[in-house]
C-alpha cells in the first residue's frame, strides 16, 4: 500500500469517498501505524428515520481550515502522512461523509492525532449538514433547542 511517494490530500467532493485511496495517500514507509476515521450516515437520529442528508461546504475556507488543523497536528505529533476527504451533496444512510487518515511512527500518536483532527474538524471547518426525515428537515446544531449531533 506504499508504492507511491508521500503525497497528502485535502478534498471536498460531491463524489463517493474512496476510503482505500485515503489510507494509501496517508501511508508512509517510515510509519508503523496508520489510524483512519470514517464517518458514515446513520439510518436514524433522535429516534427518527433519516431519509437522506444534505452536506454543504464553504469550500475555499473549508480547505484552508483543514490545512490549519493539519499544521497544528503536525506540530503536536510526528505525522508522516495524512489525508482528509469530506463529502458534500446528498448522502444516503451508510454512505461515507468523511474519512481522515494519518500515519505516524507508533500507534498511540496515530490515534491521538486522528482524533484531534476529527474533533477540530467538527468544531471549526465550515461544513453544514441538514437531516431530512420523512416529516421534515433540520440543519444540525443550528439552534439552541436542537440536540448537538455527533
Amino acid at each position, binding site marked *: 500500500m506504499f508504492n507511491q511517494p508521500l503525497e497528502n490530500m485535502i478534498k471536498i467532493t460531491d463524489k463517493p469517498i474512496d476510503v482505500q485511496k485515503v489510507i494509501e495517500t496517508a501511508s508512509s514507509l517510515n510509519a508503523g501505524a496508520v489510524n483512519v476515521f470514517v464517518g458514515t450516515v446513520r439510518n436514524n437520529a433522535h429516534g427518527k428515520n433519516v431519509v437522506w442528508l444534505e452536506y454543504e461546504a*464553504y469550500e475555499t475556507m473549508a480547505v484552508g481550515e483543514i490545512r490549519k488543523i493539519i499544521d497544528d497536528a503536525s506540530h503536536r505529533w510526528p505525522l508522516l502522512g495524512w489525508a482528509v476527504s469530506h463529502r458534500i451533496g446528498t448522502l444516503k444512510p451508510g454512505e461515507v461523509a468523511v474519512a481522515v487518515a494519518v500515519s505516524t511512527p507508533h500507534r498511540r500518536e496515530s490515534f491521538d492525532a486522528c482524533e484531534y483532527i476529527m474533533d477540530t474538524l467538527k468544531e471549526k471547518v465550515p461544513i453544514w449538514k441538514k437531516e431530512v426525515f420523512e416529516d421534515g428537515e433540520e440543519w444540525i446544531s*443550528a439552534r439552541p433547542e436542537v440536540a448537538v449531533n455527533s
Partner: protein
Amino acid sequence: MNTFRVKAFGVTKDILGGKETVVEASGKTVADLRSALTEKYPKLVGLRSLFIAVNNSYADDTALLQESDEIALIPPVSGG
C-alpha cells in the same frame, strides 16, 4: 454608509432567502456589519452561534472590513 456583499451558508441561507445578500452598515467593523445584518434579518439572533469569516478566515468583531472583502456568515458547523 458602507456596502458589503455577504455569502450565506446552511441555515443562514434559509434565513436570508438566498446564497448572498448586500448589506449597508454604518461602520467598517465586523461588529457594525453584524448589527446591520441582525437588524435586517432578526432570525439570525436565534442561532446557537454566528461567526463571520473574512477572506476565508474567522474574523473578530473588531476586525476592519473593506467593501472588496469576501465576507461569509458561518452558522454552527456540523461537518463530519
